[in-house]
Each structure stands twice: as structure tokens, then as C-alpha cells.
């Protein structure tokens, strides 16, 4: 999908956006083009490449059994995270489900912290206690990182309420997938948001499959952007970083003036639902390869860069290598980090950490409760 691109002046490059589908909105409210610069293009490319390399590194670590448990990779969907990062500020809250590594990266965690967390090391983002599904960052208003499907939606609605209550010029981006769109709690939350005009953006990452079930076998209405009923909605190409960015800018303005909005971003995940899912029992390998060839979000930006001679193949390869290098260093560091000490088993259950006898695997490694 190559859109007509023209150099309108020396530094700014114009990009035509793909068509939008709207619900309870007028198409002319949305932009048809946007502009970007060389610097911005390279920044997007580098950042998305870093995300991609990080996810692939996690895949390798999982196969080496250095990451264990449940791992849900987002490679293929990087433009969504890049777009939201470009459109929103760190004062806007973001909350999502378990496909959260790239958001953690963009919201301030380093690759080392992220990989260490997945490997359950002490140096991880959440002290090694959360794992792949539980990244959080208070300083940048990233509220995680949730394992139970749909549970983050009413939670995010509460965040939006707090923002409105405190008269903040900020919104909450509530992210979830096409599978979660069938959870009752979404409709409870959206109803509250519309009733009280909350600044909540309900953002559906539609990658066409809820684990192994395709959208038309799970949802009676697959036009997820209309599922908010009276709440306006927009459907976009999630693999186009510019469309994601411009839509979210529009959405933020809409939320602060009027109330909630539903955004459906069409995208695709290259991996299965998680590392336990090969991802080819419910879709063909050919389909996955076809998506990689024609709809890859990083290639889209790469083509704009090459066509506008912002950089050449060789320079882009250097960026790729730098990104790979950064990830490799992070991985090596994380491998040698220690796991959290046994005392961390019983901390953070309540506000006051209680005194427990924790029996070590060998008795001599036990932690005795401190005497009162």
C-alpha cells in the first residue's frame, strides 16, 4: 500500500492518509493528509525497529527457556504504539492488556529493564515480580499491563473520570483487542463514560483473531468501531503510523470537548497469540507471509524514507544494526542479573510489609521473621 507522497518544501514531506471509516462522525472532520520531516521519519523507523528487534529477542529467549511462562509478542503492530506515542503526552494515561512490551518501551522503560522483567530478574521494570504481562510506569502514567482480558477497560474508565474530575487537559487511552470487545465489562464502562462525558479513548487493536478464533466467529458485529453504539467511532489502518497519530490527535481533542470515542485500528500480529500458540492452526503461513510482504508497518516508513531520499539502504541498515546491538547488550546484561530475593515473595501484598517466615528450598536459606 503505497500512498502518493510529495515533497512540498525542503524540510516537510506530505503523506496522504488511507481512508477512514466513521460512525456518528463526519468524514470531513478528519484530515486527508499530514506532514512529516526527515528527522521524524528516521526517528519512527529507528523506534519501530527497536521494538521489533526486542520482540524477536524475547522470542529467542523464550525458546532458550530463559523467559518462561506466558509471553505475548506484538511484532507486526509496532506502528500503533509509535503512533500513540507521537500523538499523546506522558500526562495522558495509557492502560492495556498483556501485549504491552512495546508500550513499556515507549513509556520510559529501557530494553534492559523490559527484558530483565520477562526473565524475572530483580532489575526488571516491576522488580521481577510481574513478568511479561505486568509492566507499569507511574512517572509516565502507564497503568499496565493486565492478564485478565477486559479487566483494564473499566479500570481505565476510572482513570478518565479522575482526569475529568481534576480538570486535567488529558485523556486516557484504553487499549484492548478484538477478543476483549465481547466482554460485558466494556459495555458497562463505555456506558458510564458516555453518560458522564469522560475523556476515554476506547482503542481496539483488531488483529483479526482472538487467540485462535477469527473475529467473524466471535463477534456478531465485527465493525468494532460501531460497538460503542451512541459513542462515535473511527476505523483506521493501524499499520500506518501517521494515520494512528492523526486519529489519536483528533480523538484527544474530541474527548476533551465532548466525551468518549471508539477507535478501531486494523492490524496483524506475526506471532501466535502467545508463545504456546504456533499461530498457523487457524490461519495459513501464506497469509502471515503475505501480511509481512504487503502490510508491514516498518516497511511502509522505510519506503517513504527511500522514495524521498531521506536515507539510503545502507544508512537504514546501520540503524537496524544499532537497534540490534542495543537489544543484544540488554539481553546479555539481563542474563547475568540476579533474581529477586526470597523476601520479595511476601512484600507488597499490603501497604505495610508483614513479617513472615519464608521457608527456603534448603532450610538454611530460610528467612526468619524479625523478632517483634
Amino acid at each position: 500500500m503505497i500512498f502518493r507522497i510529495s515533497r512540498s518544501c525542503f524540510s516537510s514531506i506530505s503523506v496522504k492518509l488511507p481512508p477512514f471509516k466513521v460512525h456518528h462522525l463526519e468524514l470531513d472532520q478528519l484530515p486527508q493528509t499530514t506532514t512529516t520531516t526527515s528527522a521524524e521519519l528516521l526517528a519512527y523507523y529507528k523506534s519501530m525497529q527497536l521494538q521489533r528487534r526486542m520482540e524477536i529477542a524475547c522470542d529467542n529467549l523464550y525458546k532458550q527457556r530463559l523467559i518462561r511462562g506466558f509471553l505475548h509478542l506484538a511484532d507486526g503492530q509496532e506502528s500503533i504504539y509509535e503512533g500513540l506515542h507521537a500523538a499523546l503526552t506522558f500526562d495522558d494515561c495509557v492502560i492495556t492488556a498483556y501485549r504491552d512490551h512495546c508500550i513499556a518501551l515507549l513509556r520510559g522503560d529501557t530494553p534492559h529493564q523490559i527484558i530483565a522483567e520477562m526473565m524475572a530478574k530483580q532489575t526488571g521494570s516491576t522488580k521481577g515480580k510481574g513478568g511479561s504481562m505486568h509492566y507499569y510506569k507511574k512517572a509516565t502514567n502507564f497503568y499496565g499491563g493486565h492478564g485478565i482480558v477486559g479487566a483494564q477497560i473499566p479500570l481505565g474508565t476510572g482513570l478518565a473520570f479522575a482526569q475529568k474530575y481534576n480538570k486535567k487537559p488529558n485523556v486516557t487511552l484504553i487499549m484492548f483487542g478484538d477478543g476483549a470487545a465481547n466482554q460485558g465489562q466494556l459495555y458497562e464502562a463505555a456506558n458510564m463514560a458516555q453518560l458522564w462525558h469522560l475523556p476515554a479513548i476506547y482503542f481496539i487493536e483488531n488483529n483479526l483473531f482472538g487467540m485462535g478464533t477469527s473475529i467473524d466467529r466471535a463477534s456478531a458485529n465485527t465493525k468494532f468501531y460501531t460497538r460503542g453504539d451512541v459513542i462515535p467511532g473511527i476505523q483506521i489502518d493501524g499499520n500506518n503510523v501517521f494515520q494512528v497519530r492523526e486519529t489519536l490527535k483528533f480523538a484527544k481533542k474530541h474527548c476533551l470537548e465532548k466525551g468518549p470515542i471508539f477507535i478501531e485500528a486494523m492490524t496483524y500480529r506475526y506471532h501466535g497469540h502467545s508463545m504456546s500458540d504456533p499461530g498457523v492452526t487457524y490461519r495459513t503461513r501464506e497469509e502471515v507471509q503475505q501480511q509481512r510482504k504487503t502490510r508491514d508497518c516498518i516497511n511502509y516508513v522505510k519506503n517513504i524514507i527511500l522514495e524521498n531520499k531521506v536515507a539510503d539502504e545502507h544508512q537504514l541498515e546501520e540503524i537496524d544494526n544499532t537497534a540490534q546491538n542495543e537489544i543484544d547488550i540488554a539481553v546479555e546484561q539481563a542474563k547475568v542479573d540476579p533474581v529477586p530475593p526470597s523476601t520479595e515473595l511476601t512484600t507488597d501484598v499490603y501497604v505495610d510489609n508483614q513479617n513472615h517466615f519464608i521457608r527456603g528450598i534448603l532450610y538454611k536459606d530460610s528467612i526468619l521473621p524479625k523478632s517483634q
Partner: protein
Amino acid sequence: MQLLRRVYRFGSTKHRFASDITSTNRQKMNLFQAINNALDIELGANPKALLFGEDVKFGGVFRCSQGLNEKYGTDRVFNTPLCEQGIGAFGIGLASVGYTAIAEIQFGDYIFPAFDQIVNEAAKFRYRSGNQFNCGSLTIRSTWGAVGHGALYHSQSPEAYFAHTPGLKVVVPRDPIQAKGLLLASIRDKNPVIFFEPKALYRNAEDEVPLDDYELELSKAEVVQQGKHITLIGYGTSIRVLKEASKLAEKDGVSCEIIDLQTIYPYDGQTLVDSVKKTGRCIITHEAPQTCGMGAELSAFIQEKCFLHLEAPIKRVAGYDTPFPLVHEPIYLPDKFKIYEAIKQSVNY
């Protein structure tokens, strides 16, 4: 309404113990294959049986429903959307008009959106309608327990929440032969049953499982190992841990009696009491957090019935009172060393 004759009733045999089954018509199966076999038998014998849940159609994430959609069709073995509350409630509705609803909740950790429906609707249906209606033909199957790397949301053991609700039955099998018999009994029991399947045993536990249609009695515990000095009570994966611990204790000359509770609620108090009256000592173990776990209920019950027979306080060796941890799982779980230590403390009291 014409009640369908349940043909299988003449073909199915009911047993108290798996050891009573004399059939030589057996096949080596692991836990998920045994569950699959049980579901196959029920779907085959009972045209009103329906199996549904997330990703059930292609065989299920743990292969429990493998081949069943191909055999019985999408009318009877079908996927639901991602909505546990919907799955649970939909099952209650189906059961109340006479269908045998077998609802699958993919992980026990995800059962909580359905908690209200199970506890408020399913458990009290018969009671509140004065026995006009019931959802007895509902069985909810869900996976259960630690699996080595499941962390907070793929390892929980929620049996205690449901054992606290009269009107429900809760069952946890320890191996493939028990699982098949108990599952068939649970499905056919005229009360709503929650059947928790230990996911760690799906592939690891293997046995020569009889291919016949057989049921094992609910609300009956089984003495898995005879012993003289101390009674060890557990269920599901814990039975293996108790056996390992008892081997350690044997070296010290302590003979342990191991009881598998099987039906968590309503439990077989008589078997437990008979055993503790004989041994005078008792340890109860479960992966779920200690406070208000099944160990608490069983301790209270046993001390009430066997007070003068007890030589030592009843001990519970359970998970810590924390969320199920990530990397600290080996320290969190009640392993054979912790149980062995509890045995020593009890015997030396």
C-alpha cells in the same frame, strides 16, 4: 416434556474405588486424553450433552476436546466468544431446560467474571424456586493449579471460593483414571459441579485407563496409601507431593496414611475422621493460600470430631498468603520438604 431415556445408565458402571474396576479393556492415556475420552463417551451416549467454551472447537488449548467437534458437529461442540460471565450464565440457562451443559473456562484464574452467576444463580436455583427448576445438568470444567511458570494469572487454585457456596459441588481429580470416572460422575450428577483439572498433570500423568463407561462416586475420599502414624490429606497435584514426602518420612520409620479428598465439597468427612482416629495426627496440604483455604475447614471439622484422639495439633502446609508469584514459585509451593518438616514436627510434638 418427554424425558429422553438415558441409555448410558444401563451401560455405565458406578464404583467407589478405581481399583474395583475389573475391566481389562484399557489404554495408556494421560490426563487430557482421559478427559477427552470421558467427554467423548458422554457426548456419544447423551444427545442432549453440549460442550462449549473458548477455543474448544479446534481441540482446546490443552487438547481436551480434540476431535470432538469433528465427531459431534458444531451444534454440540462449539466456541463461545471471550466472555466467561456469558459462558457460565449461558450454561445455567441450558441446564435449566434439561440440556447437559459442559462449560469450559480455559484457566481457573479467569473464572471470576462468572463468579456471580455461579454463586448467585447456579448454586441457588433449586433452592429459590422451591425445586421447580434446577441447573443440575451443568458442569463447569476449568484448569487448576501451579504449572511451573504460570505466575499470578495461570496458576490459581480457586476451589475454596466455591466450597464456601452451598448448592455447588467441587471436584479435583489426581490422575487420569480418577479424572475420567469423576468427570462422568460430575456431568451426570444432578447438581451443578465445578470440575477443576490440574493443568500440570495434563501431559505428565499417565495410566492404563479403562475404556468403558464408568463413574467414580462423588463425595467419597480415597485412602491412597495406608499408614499408621499420621494422616496426610490433599487433592489434585498435592497427592504426588504427599507421596514423595511420605517416602522421606518412611526413612525415619514414620508410616504415613495418604487420603485424596477428591470431592472438595461436599467432602467425605467420615473417611477423614476414621483415619485420624487411627493415627492421631494430621496434616492437610493445598497450593491455595493458607488462610481460609480448604485446610482451614478440614482442620476445624477434624478437631471437632477427633479432639480426644489427637496427639498433636493439625497442621496445614499451604501456599503463602500472597498472590501466586512469578519466579518465587518454588519457594511459594508446599513442596515435599515443607510437608516432611511438618510430619517431623507433628510426630515429635
